[in-house]
Structures are given as structure tokens and as C-alpha cells.
């Protein structure tokens, strides 16, 4: 009882001191401000989001700008709140990986009201009505995305190339555009190459449910020899590998996944994965460049822009080593290259140039430029 | 060498000085009575000695060793155990589990509690106290108030105390329970053990105690041998002024109107009582007596519609309605004072005001609005009527002394101006002065045409205030006696057993 009263009194005292101190702090003024870019992202601690953020920070540094990150957990309410918050913090532009088309109208509306440019990364808008609405908005700058059907197709083909015949797919939740498109791609490749799809499991967002799902599949289908992880090289892939290892089936079951992380080299060496797509963390970088040019007073287009990117595919240890060396240990685009993607430093830079750079992105491309 | 010495112990609760510089010494083999008005500090003193609360200042010695218990367990180890005034058993546990609470290790083998073992030991313990009717594996909440009290008592004895404190327990007990209790006290005394016995029943104190300590407003007034002391003298010491001689009714005849207000016909509750019929009249005080498990406490609950009767009817004649649930009962002007006041009578975590006003809310409201001012006035009036000792009507009931809780519990029906009051042990734990005023009040109500059903374990009280006494035995009306001059306790007991 007594301690509580003391604590309460202490809190009141801190309050008092704080009030006095506040006057001093408020007196300080601000100086000339660098551009501030707001990024709403699903998380900030998994490999993909970490890389996205660090890459954006690097680019911003080069250009003397700042990046503000807000985590939304892929929940619509949080995404709306984040955009509100970021705008309130005085961001000059905001970008988001929207969890569903349905939040786009609201987010676009917020941007319009605040007259802050907005762009999407990793996403295209599937719903025609919503796409029309967004593209008619003055402050919707555009979106960058991967051709996920192509990704699924490429990885599905890699499975077939290994001679595998019986596969399952585990994936993010239904309704997630990316996951859905990869699924379509896988199915297409399997159908063409005669790989049997034994089963599929959705709503796998984490390692634990992935372990459970995969263990059930292994138990149910002794003939199982391939697992396609549609969504997520983070938790779901880690869980899948764990389950396969638990059943001593490493090497017998080929795993493919998207979004590779830092341990891709080991995974390939240990035959834990057969092929992976990834490296597309540069996608938000192109969204950022679109926004930067806009904010800097040199919009690359007066209409919303859609840029399509190719991911990098890795199927061997050597490739992975190269990838680590050229894309992870050093930025895929160096200072000079970044500056050259802005009209500020490169008067002749156009949207077509940016598209070309994005389309050319691959392991060979990076090695070529930096050799 | 004294067994227990208490020196200048004081305790203040927020603003209430509950105990001031209290000193006393208890000798080996002594039965010490402790008396005083409600809120005079008896329970506070007992709680300090037995480790329930710690004093603000002062010292205590047990067999000349410093005695500073921080928990009940520490006090137990020093040889002191207590039967508390309020309910001290834990609902949801069995009798045996309650009895051996804190001693489970004795019955644990390799981490497993041997329930059968414990039950057997419990059965044995209960039998040695002459308690035959309680099964050790029964859920304690299914037992009657008295049985639960007896289990607490058994638990306190089980510790094997050098000093046993019994706080205001007997008024909750029937004749049988009291006999068991006093038998054990005598046995302890014979074994050179000591007892502090707190009670508002002064006759009982004089009969069973060697010495008596009187408290008033947190101060120990005096300690006297009981020999050569009479009730009147003791009362004067307690209250600090002379009291009227008797507080019971002066008249010797039943007197009530012809108007029937409550008609009870063939009322049966399976397992408790059967075929009870009577008419309650305006201006009548109907006493109901019997052994504690004769069904009279259950009868009170059924009359008030808290339990549905198996068959039979209760009719509120003025309203022309049968009463079948408590909401109807209240609407028909009934009020009910339960025996188990801490759980059934009061909301301990609410203020005195909230407790007193609760049944009257429907009368206080205008459309839907309940004026805080009116609530306050009502509560003030109720508190004054029974002179509740409190710091303000906003005080939580949790912090009231036992007797004052009882007053709050009664007050809520008085301020509602109930026409028919069902009172189960109305003067339980109430001091003599207030007892007198409650009896006076009951007569006042009677004069105003109210009707009262008074269920009581106290034969004196039954004889003293009732117009008629209905005696139950094993759930059946054994006899109904009219008020008359030479009605004796023996006669009533005759029908009870």
C-alpha cells in the first residue's frame, strides 16, 4: 500500500518536472528539412522487410532524404492508421504494400486530402473499379510489382526439371494477390509438366503452422517429393525445412519458395531447397525513385505508372555465393547509379530509363555493372 | 508468567483509531471474556494477536518471547489460533480441504495429494469434536452456516493451540453447536490451555469465563473476575451509562390485528421442510425456532422467493398475488435479512450508501433518474436510525465491524418501509445497546401494522419479542405457542428435540 502511494506521488512529481522541462524543449526551432518518405510495411524484423528498409535507407542517404517506417501487420485498419500517422508526421510522400485492394480507395483518399503523393510497392491493383479510381487520383503516383504468375511458373518448372512428380503447395491466406498469382503460376507449370498436385494448404503465415501442415502432408502422402512454398521465404519456409528434416527427407523432397533470406547459400548447399526466387526487395526501391523524382519537382510521368520487375532465381550454391557477394554485401545500385536515376542529377533521365533498369535487374546485370 | 502479554498496542485504519494503547495479560488455563459495543475494537485486537493484521505500535509477548506474527501461520506456530467472526471457510473446497488448508503436505506423497487419506483424517478430527453429520468430502458451500462455523472451530482446535481465540461465533450457532463449543473450551481449560472468548451474549460470558475484559472505543476499560459480576453491571461498563432493565417486550399477551398479510399453505421444500401452513397478520411478530437444521433458515428463503418451493404457496394477501420469486416478493413489500451477512446480506466492496439504497432504488427514481441527493438522504436516515458506527456513508462495508455490518444489512429493508420483514437471526453479533434498540424498533414496526417473521436461534429472544412462536422439528411444525407470561425455554426446547 505504502509503496503504491509513493509510486503515485513519484509519478506526479515526474509530471511536474516534465511540465517545467517542456518549456525549454519547445523553445527550439527547426531548420531546413530534408525530404521525408513514409513507408508502411507489414513488419520490420523478417529478412525481406529488413532488407527492404535498409535498401531504402541507403538510397535516401545518398539523396539526402529520410525514411520513416511504420509497421502495419497487414491489417487494413493499421494500414489506414499508418498512412494517417505518416502524413501527420509531415512525410512528403508515402508508400505502402497494401494488404488488399479494398483499402486502396481509402488510402488514396487520405493522400488526396492531404495532397501527399502515394505509391504502392510489391503490388498491382486487380480490381478494375478500384484501379480506375486510383489511377484517376491526382496524388496516386503508381505501383511496382513482380509478375508473380511468372515466378510461380518458373519455380514450378524448376521442380519438374529435378524430375519430381508429386507436389503440394502451402501458401499465405487466400485473397492475398501475390500468393494467389504464384499459386496460379505453379499450377500452370505442374499441369504442363505432368507434376501431380497432391494437396494445398492456405493461411500459413508462420513457421509453426507450416511445420504442422507439412508433417501432415508427409504422413498422408509417402510419395511426396516436392513442396512449393507459395508465400514467404521467412517463417513458412523455415517451418517447412524443419518438418522435412524431422522426417529425414532432406534431398528426397525438393522445396521451392519465394523471397530468399540470408541463409540461402546454406539452404542450397544442404539441399534443403531446390530453387528460390527473391532479391525483389529492390522493388520498393523503384517505387521510392518514382516518388523521389515527383517530390523533387520532376515527376517522371503525369499519369500513374506501373513498373513490372523480374526477381532473381537461384538454383545452385555458386549462384547463391555470387548473389551474396554482389547483391547483399554491396547495394545493387551504387551511389552514382542512384543519383543517375534522378532528374536532379541527370537531366535527361526518363520513365523509360527507369523501366529499363527495373526490367534488366538480375544477378548477371548487377555483376556486369559492378565488376 | 503470563501466557500472552499485550503492551500498549495501537492500530489506526485510515481515520478510525480502532485500538489505542491496549494492554492485557492472559494466564495459563484462563478463559477470558472480551466484551464491548460494536466497533469497540475487539476483532481488531483479536486479529492482531492472531497475525491477521499487524499493529501500528506496541509489543506482544507469548510465553515471554516477543510475539510479532505477520501471518496466521506464524501465529499458529507460536501456539495461537482463531475462529474469526465472519465466514472463514473457502467455497468450492471440500470440508476436508478446508480443514487441512495449509497442511496439505501431510497428505502428499510424491507430489500427489492423497485425498482418501485426508478425508479419513478429517472424519476422525470431526468425530472427536462430536460432529457426526458432516461428510469430509462434501463441498463446504453446501453446508449450513452453523456447520461451516463448526468446521472452522475444528480447524482452529486442530492446530493444538495454547491460546484459542473465538470471535463472536456463538450467536451464529444453535443450542447444539454451542454445547459442542463450550464442551471443547472446558476441555482446553482443563489441559491448562487459555481462551479469549468474544461475545455479545453477556450471560454466556459470565457463565463460561473466569475473567472478562471490557473495551470501549478502542480502549481497554477494565478487566474483572466474573465471579460477583452481573449482566447489568457488565452492560454499564460496556456502554458507559446505565441501561433500562429489560429490553424485551413488557406485555405478556399476543396482540395483532385480524388482517392476514401473508398466507402460507402446505409449503414444502424437498429435503428441508414439508407442509408448513400459517397466517401472518398485520402487527404480528411471528417467531420461528428450532434446531439449526430443522429447516427454518430454508423456510425464510422460500418465503422470500429465493428458492422455489417444491409445492405449496405463499400469498401476499394485500396484493392478491402468489409470491414465487424474489422480485415479486420485494414488489409485494417483503424484505429479507439473511443469516450469512457477508455473502448474502452485503456487498462488502460497496459503500454503506449503496447497500442501504439498493432495494429502494425503484422508489427513489423519477422516471429513470435516481437523484444522488435523495440516495444520500435515505442512507443518512437509515444509518442514523440504527446508529451505525462509521466514518461516513461512503465508507466501504468491508471496513465495518461485524455488528455494524449487520445493522447495514437490516437498514436497507427498514428504509424501504417493507410491510413484511423476514429476519433470520436479526441480532447476530449486535451489542446489547443496539439489540435493545432493534427490539424497540420491531415493536414500533408492529405498532405501525407491519408484520415480522423472526427466525432465531436465541430462545430468550424468541420468548422476549414474539407474539407467536412456531417451532419446527425436522422440517415439520411441531407446535405453535402463543405469547404468555410463563413461557419457558424448557418448554420450547421440549418441542425442538
Amino acid at each position, binding site marked *: 500500500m505504502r509503496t503504491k502511494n509513493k509510486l*503515485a*506521488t513519484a*509519478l*506526479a512529481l515526474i509530471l511536474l518536472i*516534465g511540465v517545467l*522541462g*517542456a518549456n525549454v*524543449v*519547445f523553445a527550439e526551432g527547426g531548420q531546413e528539412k530534408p525530404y521525408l518518405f513514409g513507408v508502411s510495411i507489414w*513488419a*520490420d*524484423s523478417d529478412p525481406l522487410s529488413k532488407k527492404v528498409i535498409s535498401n531504402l535507407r541507403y538510397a535516401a542517404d545518398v539523396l539526402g532524404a529520410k525514411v*520513416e517506417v*511504420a509497421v502495419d501487420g497487414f491489417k*487494413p*485498419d493499421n*494500414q489506414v*492508421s*499508418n498512412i494517417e500517422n505518416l502524413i*501527420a*508526421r*509531415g512525410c512528403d510522400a508515402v508508400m505502402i504494400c497494401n494488404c*488488399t*485492394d*479494398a*483499402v486502396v*480507395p*481509402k488510402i488514396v483518399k487520405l493522400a488526396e486530402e492531404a495532397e501527399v503523393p502515394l505509391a504502392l510497392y510489391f503490388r498491382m491493383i486487380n*480490381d478494375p*473499379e478500384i484501379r480506375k479510381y486510383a489511377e484517376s487520383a491526382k496524388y496516386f503516383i503508381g505501383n511496382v510489382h513482380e509478375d508473380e504468375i511468372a515466378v510461380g511458373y518458373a519455380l514450378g518448372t524448376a521442380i519438374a526439371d529435378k524430375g519430381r512428380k508429386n507436389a503440394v503447395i502451402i501458401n499465405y491466406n*487466400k*485473397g*492475398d494477390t501475390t500468393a494467389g498469382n504464384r499459386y496460379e503460376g505453379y499450377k500452370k507449370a505442374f499441369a504442363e509438366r505432368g507434376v501431380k498436385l497432391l494437396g494445398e494448404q*492456405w*493461411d500459413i503465415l508462420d513457421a509453426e503452422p507450416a511445420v504442422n501442415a507439412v508433417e501432415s502432408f508427409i504422413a498422408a502422402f509417402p510419395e511426396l517429393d516436392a513442396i512449393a512454398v507459395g508465400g514467404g521465404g521467412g517463417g513458412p519456409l523455415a517451418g517447412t525445412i524443419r518438418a522435412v528434416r524431422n522426417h529425414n527427407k532432406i534431398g528426397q523432397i525438393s522445396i521451392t519458395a519465394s523471397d530468399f533470406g540470408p541463409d540461402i547459400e546454406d539452404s542450397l548447399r544442404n539441399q534443403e531447397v531446390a530453387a528460390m526466387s527473391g532479391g525483389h526487395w529492390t522493388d520498393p526501391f523503384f517505387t521510392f525513385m518514382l516518388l523521389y523524382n515527383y517530390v523533387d519537382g520532376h515527376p517522371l510521368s503525369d499519369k500513374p505508372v506501373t513498373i513490372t520487375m523480374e526477381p532473381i532465381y537461384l538454383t545452385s550454391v555458386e549462384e547463391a555465393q555470387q548473389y551474396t557477394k554482389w547483391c547483399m554485401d554491396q547495394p545493387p545500385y551504387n551511389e552514382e547509379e542512384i543519383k543517375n536515376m534522378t532528374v536532379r542529377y541527370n537531366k535527361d533521365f526518363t520513365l523509360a530509363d527507369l523501366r529499363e533498369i527495373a526490367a534488366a535487374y538480375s544477378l548477371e546485370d548487377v555483376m556486369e555493372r559492378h565488376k | 508468567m503470563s501466557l500472552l502479554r499485550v503492551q500498549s498496542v495501537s492500530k489506526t485504519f*485510515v481515520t478510525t483509531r480502532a485500538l489505542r494503547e491496549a494492554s492485557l495479560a492472559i494466564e495459563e488455563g484462563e478463559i477470558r471474556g472480551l466484551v464491548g459495543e460494536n466497533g469497540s475494537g475487539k476483532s481488531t485486537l483479536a486479529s492482531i494477536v492472531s497475525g491477521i493484521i499487524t499493529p501500528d505500535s506496541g509489543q506482544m509477548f507469548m510465553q515471554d518471547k516477543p510475539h510479532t506474527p505477520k501471518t496466521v501461520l506464524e501465529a499458529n506456530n507460536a501456539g495461537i489460533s482463531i475462529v474469526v467472526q465472519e465466514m472463514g471457510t473457502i467455497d468450492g473446497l471440500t470440508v476436508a480441504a478446508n480443514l487441512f488448508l495449509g497442511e496439505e503436505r501431510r497428505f502428499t506423497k510424491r507430489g500427489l495429494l492423497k485425498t482418501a487419506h485426508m478425508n479419513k483424517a478429517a472424519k476422525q478430527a470431526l468425530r472427536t469434536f462430536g460432529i457426526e453429520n458432516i461428510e469430509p468430502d462434501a463441498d463446504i458451500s453446501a453446508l449450513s452456516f452453523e456447520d461451516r462455523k463448526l468446521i472452522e472451530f475444528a480447524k482452529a482446535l486442530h492446530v493444538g493451540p495454547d491460546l484459542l481465540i473465538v470471535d463472536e461465533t456463538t450467536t451464529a450457532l444453535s443450542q447444539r453447536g454451542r454445547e459442542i463449543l463450550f464442551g471443547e473450551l472446558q476441555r482446553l481449560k482443563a489441559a491448562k490451555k487459555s481462551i479469549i472468548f468474544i461475545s455479545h451474549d453477556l450471560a454466556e460470558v459470565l457463565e463460561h469465563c473466569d475473567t472478562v475484559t471490557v473495551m470501549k472505543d478502542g480502549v481497554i476499560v477494565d478487566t474483572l473476575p466474573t465471579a460477583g459480576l452481573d449482566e447489568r453491571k457488565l452492560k454499564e461498563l460496556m456502554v458507559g451509562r446505565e441501561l433500562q432493565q429489560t429490553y424485551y417486550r413488557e406485555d405478556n399477551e399476543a396482540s395483532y390485528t385480524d388482517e392476514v398479510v401473508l398466507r402460507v399453505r402446505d409449503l414444502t421444500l424437498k429435503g428441508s421442510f414439508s407442509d408448513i401452513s400459517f397466517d401472518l397478520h398485520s402487527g404480528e411478530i411471528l417467531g420461528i425456532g428450532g434446531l439449526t437444521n430443522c429447516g427454518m433458515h430454508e423456510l425464510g428463503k422460500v418465503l422470500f422467493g*429465493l428458492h422455489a418451493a417444491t409445492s405449496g404457496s405463499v400469498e401476499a394477501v394485500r396484493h392478491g398475488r402468489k409470491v414465487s420469486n*424474489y422480485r415479486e416478493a*420485494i414488489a409485494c413489500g417483503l424484505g429479507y435479512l*439473511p443469516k450469512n451477512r457477508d*455473502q*448474502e446480506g*452485503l*456487498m*462488502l*466492496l*460497496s*459503500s454503506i450508501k*449503496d*447497500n442501504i*439504497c*439498493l*432495494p429502494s*432504488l*425503484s422508489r427513489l*427514481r423519477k422516471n429513470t*433518474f*435516481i437523484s444522488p441527493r435523495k440516495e444520500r438522504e435515505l442512507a443518512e436516515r437509515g444509518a442514523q436510525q440504527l446508529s451505525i458506527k462509521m466514518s461516513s456513508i461512503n465508507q466501504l462495508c*468491508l471496513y465495518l465491524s461485524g455488528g455494524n455490518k449487520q445493522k447495514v444489512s437490516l437498514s*436497507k429493508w427498514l428504509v424501504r418501509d417493507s410491510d413484511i420483514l423476514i429476519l433470520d437471526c436479526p441480532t447476530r453479533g449486535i451489542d446489547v445497546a443496539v439489540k435493545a434498540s432493534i427490539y424497540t424498533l420491531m415493536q414500533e414496526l408492529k405498532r405501525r401494522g407491519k408484520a415480522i417473521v423472526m427466525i432465531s436461534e436465541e430462545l430468550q429472544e424468541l420468548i422476549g419479542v414474539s407474539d407467536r412462536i412456531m417451532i419446527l422439528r425436522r422440517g415439520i411444525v411441531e407446535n405453535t405457542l402463543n405469547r404468555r407470561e410463563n413461557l419457558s425455554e424448557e418448554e420450547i426446547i421440549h418441542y425442538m428435540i
Partner: protein
Amino acid sequence: MKGIKKLIPYIGLALIILLFGVLTQGKLLTLRNLKLVFNQAVVLIIASTGVAFVMAQGSLDLSQGSLLGITGAMTATAAALHPGLALPMALLTGFAVGLINGSLLAFLKIPSFIVTLCVLFVLRGLTVIATHAGSIPVPMEMLAFDSYDIKVTLLVLILAGAYYLFNYTQTGKGMRAIGSGEVAARYSGVPVERLKVTAYLISGTLCGLCGWLNVVRTGAADSKTGLLLELDILTALVLGGMPLTGGSGAKLQSAVVGGLMLALLGNGMVLVGIMAELQQAVKGVIFLLAVYLSFERESAVLIK
């Protein structure tokens, strides 16, 4: 000294405002940002107001998060038929779930946290099914309902009504009496079962309204909508000084003070740029502190 304990929630609120006011160099307190905080807090405050009635009785309502989800889904589905159906549908869904919660609790005598926890799971499952594990968009014109004027008006009306009901009527007093001691309240004539159901009807219906507000705010009903809202509500109420036991110490103000505290805390941490995981941890620690400071050891014995 006793009085200061009652002030703890207010001191806490002031501390949060002050701390983040300083850390954000006043940005927290700009009109624009305060409007934002209000915008984000309004659902929490309204939902907490409803749950305050439940907690006053010493019960819990853990179904709120999923209820927000399912009302969202129902609302969006109804809105697809006709936008005018959205609000009635939201209120009806909330009311119905409140009725189920209350009836299970009052008549089957299952403890409230179990009942509402089960309902939480069931409703989340239904939400995932209804949204096909994704999201349902609502007609874009419905975003127009997301205006400050509407929200401020609604909030003022609801708070005024709830305050009156809670403090000045037999219903509110009866509910608190149940929290203080159910048996004694019954013995004093309080219609215990009826009030229990009523409390859940209030909390359900208000949560239904929140479901509608949420849908018109985000433009979508999602399978994840409202996830963990029930814990935010609980935290807000406890931060606001609501005793877990309910009873006479229950105050409706807790919903407002706690809701604002939580919203300001969240907004402030975003403004300052604290990592998301750390934000959760900070909330947890503050919650613990609030419970510790407001917990009455004496009365703990009496928690049912």
C-alpha cells in the same frame, strides 16, 4: 493519500501527453495530429464504453475483436446489396452476439471469460469464412460516412447516454451491485440475469456500431479486422482505472481516459519512431504497472 490513487489514470494520461509532447517537439499536440488520434481512438472508446458495463458486473467480454471482424464482414456484405443496409446490419449483428453472450453467461452459468473466449474463436472463424480469408470491399461512396462531424456527434451522444445509464439509473446501479456482490445484489432484488444480458447487449451493440465505423473508415472488411481489439479494450479500461472485479469502484470515465491514453501512446510511439515489437512491450509494461497501482489487495480475496 487515498485520493491520489483515483487520480493515477489522469496523471498517467498527462504523463503520456507530456512525454510525447516533448519527444515529438510538440507535434503530438498539433490540431491535425489530435484529430488523428481522435480518429483512431474513437472505435476503442466506444467499444470500451460498452465493455465497461460488462466489467462493472465483474465479468469480461473477450469477444469484441472477432465481433468487430464479423460485423465488418456482415456490414460489407449487406452494403453490397444496398449501402443503407450497412448500419442496421452492423447494429443487428452486434445485438445478436450480445444476446448470445449474455444468455450463455446468465442462464447456463458459464464463466464470462470462457463464454466470450469461445465466441471469440467462433466469430473469428466465421469472419475468415465470410471474407474468404481475404477482404470484402464496400462501395466507395460509403467512405463519405467517415467524417469527423459524424464521429464526434456519435461519440458525444453515446458517452452522454452511457454516463447517464451507468450512474443515474437502476440499471447502472444494479450492474455495479452485481460486481460488488452478486448474491447480495440478488437478495436485494436486483434482476441479476436480466442485467447480465443487458450489459452484453450494450457492449455487443456498441461494438456493432464500431464495426460499421471501421468499415467506412478503411473501406474494407478483412479477415484480420479487429484482431486483438479485445485486449486493447481491456488494457484501455484497466489503464483508465476500471477494477477487474467491477463493482462500486467501476467508473465509466475509464473508457475515455484509458482509450485516449492508449491511442496517444500508440500515436506518440509512431511519431517518435519506436520499433513495432518494442511498442507492444511498452504497452505490456504500462498495463502491468496500471494493474499493480490500482489493485486492491484487500478485495482480491473476494474476486469470484
